[in-house]
């Protein structure tokens, strides 16, 4: 059973629909007691980092997610949900994140490119053997974001893309905490493959 974390940050419908399409049983909740019953969690989200953290805290989901992560249970962050997994963001003032992964979130630098980074961009896979990448050897996925993660540990890079003169982390992972900067639920076959890999991933407390 997949729990999709509802913390008021929109766009949950398309994630739920994608899970349904993949034949997965999923439920939506913002209640830690309910989410505790899930085997895996997905943290989606669209909006600002500051609002996202605030909404997590209001619902006591920050402490819940921390203990979830400490128990080694599988978690997938998508878009803003992925950025929240890092230590801090400069979006609308410095804000601390969940700090499950080392790194910071900053605005794309200004230059001869458009911000947000919006559209289909190509994946370069750094870790072809990672379980998230099963059956995925590149291909294009759909991004919409104005802020970008600067990894504190290059080992978390599973796949990336290039934009605005930067290497943009696209799939990140450390243990059973995974994240995608793009929207797998809107990324056609490649995105659905990555979502499926998370659903089939044998994670859990016994690992590591």
């Amino acid at each position, binding site marked *: 059973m997949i729990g999709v974390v509802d913390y008021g940050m*929109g*766009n949950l*419908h*398309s994630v739920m*629909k*994608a899970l*349904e*399409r993949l034949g997965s049983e999923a439920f939506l909740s913002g209640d830690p007691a309910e989410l505790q019953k899930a085997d895996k969690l997905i943290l989606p989200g*669209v*909006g*600002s980092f500051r609002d996202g953290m605030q909404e997590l805290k209001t619902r006591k989901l920050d402490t819940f997610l921390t203990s979830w992560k400490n128990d080694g249970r599988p978690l997938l962050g998508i878009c803003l949900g992925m950025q929240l997994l890092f230590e801090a963001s400069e979006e609308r003032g410095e804000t601390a994140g969940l700090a499950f992964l080392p790194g910071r979130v900053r605005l794309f630098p200004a230059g001869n490119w*458009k*911000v*947000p*980074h*919006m*559209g*289909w*961009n*190509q994946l370069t896979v750094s870790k072809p053997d990672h379980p998230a990448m099963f059956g995925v050897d590149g291909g*294009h996925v*759909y991004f*919409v974001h104005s802020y970008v993660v600067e990894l504190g540990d290059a080992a978390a890079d599973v796949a990336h893309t*290039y*934009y605005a003169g930067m290497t943009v982390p696209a799939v990140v992972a450390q243990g059973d905490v995974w994240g995608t900067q793009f*929207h797998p*639920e*809107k*990324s*056609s*076959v490649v*995105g*659905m493959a990555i979502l499926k890999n998370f659903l089939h991933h044998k994670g859990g407390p016994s690992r590591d």
Partner: protein
Amino acid sequence: MLTKRIIPCLDVKEGRVVKGVQFVNLRDAGDPVELASFYDREWADELVFLDISASHEGRETMVDVVEEVAGTLAIPFTVGGGINSLDDMKRILRAGADKVSLNTAAVNRPELVREGADFFGTQCIVVAIDAKWDESLRSWRVYTHGGRNASAWEVKDWAAHVVSLGAGELLLTSMDQDGEKNGFDVNLTRTVSQHVDVPVIASGGAGKKEDFYEVFTDGEADAALAASIFHYKETSVAQVKSYLKEKGLDIR
């Protein structure tokens, strides 16, 4: 590199796709969900649904269509037509659309763009601009109400204004080229694209695959939208994309 996007546009009236779509292999060519899946399989990068319902009931039906489409489509889609308020935007986005497109309502009350962007984020708000060359302006003039009414806005000024209010993308239709199949209005597209720092979708005039190449290169468009050439199978999304790839453009 970000790829250039190819976007088929579907006109929806009272919950059905209209405008003589010709798909022999489909069970029911008027079904938005089936057509959406068809274009998804053809590697369309995105879809636009334009609600042309005449009645309130028709617009309510659109919400059901959006919900159903969202359940089958694994690519982004935008819904436009008759969106006049923040409540309209909420209904469509909550039903599962990724973006809403505002046109006449934005000209009538530009603050609506800001309200939408503040509430949902700029990435959700597309402003559709219908533009027509105006000799007295020595530029293009913005029209509303499906091209029936001239506004006071010059196209560059209007584009910059809506971007400053929070439009995340512009859907720019050339009224001079629309339906002519003589190619996109490259000058109009380039003029607007150079003037703003958000993506510009070129629309109006697509007749053959070479037209897409021209508007992506000379026109500096980020995406190109077409309806009839895809619906009538004069060419396919896949054919256009493989041609553009051969020509060296970044295409998914």
